[in-house]
Every structure is written in structure tokens, then in C-alpha cells.
């Protein structure tokens, strides 16, 4: 049963520390998304990759957030330095865009619950 995996599942850290979240997309998927969920803002798209290339990261605070895909099996989201307002659940999702086709269903990982003190 293929699924998106995320690590860590929970992270508590102090303000100013670096946080790295990892995601393993479903094998064969060519799109990866990072979302953030908070009570106030709901689900927000932070970054979007297709075939490992970043297509859109306009939803991400550039000064402290960075997203990369070192290879097709790993996506990372890094916050440096972290702030209390970054506390949220961070979801990774993957999907497939066939050649010449449209984005199909996105599958979400279990999320990383981040608390910055």
C-alpha cells in the first residue's frame, strides 16, 4: 500500500533553532507539495515541485524557509531560524501529472506537528 511518509512526526524546538522536515513521496509520482495547516489560516500551499524542479514557492517566507528535492525520493523543508509563529502541522503531498495531462489526485502524508517555543 503506497503512501507518503514524513519525518519527524512531532518536533518541539526552541526559537532560533533550525528545523528540517523530510518527505518521501509515493514512488512514481512526479509532483510534490508542501502545505502548512494552522487554526487561523487553514491549509496553505508553501511550495510545489514537478520532476524535482521548484515551480512555485510564493507561499513560503523566503527569508527563513527553504524547500529542496535532492532526489526523486526525498523532499525537504527547512526553517532557519525558527520562530513561534511557525508552529503548525506541515503536510507533504505527492501526485502524478501524466505527460500532456492534468494533475491527478494528491496524496497526503501524516504531517509533521511542529511546536516552536
Amino acid at each position: 500500500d503506497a503512501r507518503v511518509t514524513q519525518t519527524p512526526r512531532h518536533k518541539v524546538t526552541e526559537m532560533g533553532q533550525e528545523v528540517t522536515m523530510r518527505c518521501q513521496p509515493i514512488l512514481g509520482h512526479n509532483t510534490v507539495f508542501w502545505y502548512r495547516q494552522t487554526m487561523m489560516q487553514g491549509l496553505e500551499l508553501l511550495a510545489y515541485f514537478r520532476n524535482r524542479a521548484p515551480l512555485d514557492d510564493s507561499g513560503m517566507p523566503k527569508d527563513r524557509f527553504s524547500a529542496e528535492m535532492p532526489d526523486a525520493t526525498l523532499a525537504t523543508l527547512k526553517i532557519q531560524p525558527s520562530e513561534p509563529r511557525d508552529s503548525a502541522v506541515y503536510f507533504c503531498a505527492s501526485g502524478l501529472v501524466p505527460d500532456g495531462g492534468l494533475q491527478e489526485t494528491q496524496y497526503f502524508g501524516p504531517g509533521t506537528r511542529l511546536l516552536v517555543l
Partner: protein
Amino acid sequence: GIQVEQSPPDLILQEGANSTLRCNFSDSVNNLQWFHQNPWGQLINLFYIPSGTKQNGRLSATTVATERYSLLYISSSQTTDSGVYFCALTDSWGKLQFGAGTQVVVTP
């Protein structure tokens, strides 16, 4: 960007009851998905439904793209149906735009 409005914002059901959740959207879209976020936070795909009607067990969904709305039907609700139901639309770049969700509580 695309505006996605869901109604009602909250819903309390007694076990066994039926209900309809609605999703209105502001622009033509390539596709639409319904998700269920369970009380543990997991987001589960329910339907990928750009148009037409689909059924999966006690759940079914209908999207009328020309009129810019989609409906999610829950029949014979169970306590395990509790959670938040999100409607999300995909733009031409494949980005999902989520609605605010409908919080459903099913009581025994």
C-alpha cells in the same frame, strides 16, 4: 485566485442521519477533490471528481462544473465520519486551493 466556499461550517449529526455538504467555487477549474481530515489529523482522499457523480460506500459526491458547485453526501452517518471535510480545487498549475472545511460531529 480561485475562491472556495464551503457550507455549512459546522454540522452535528446523530448516528444514522444523512447530510449534504456543499462546495461553491468562483472560477472554472480542472478538477476537484474532497478530503476527510480525521480527528488524528490525517488527510484522506475521498473523491477526485471534476464533474459527474461518484459513490464510495456511504459517501457520494456530485460536481456540476458549469454551475461551479460540488456536493458531498453522507448517508447513514457513523461516529467514524466525524472530522473536517475539505473541498479543494486544482488550478492549471496543479496547485490545490482548499476551502475552510466543514466540521462534522456524529454523535452516538
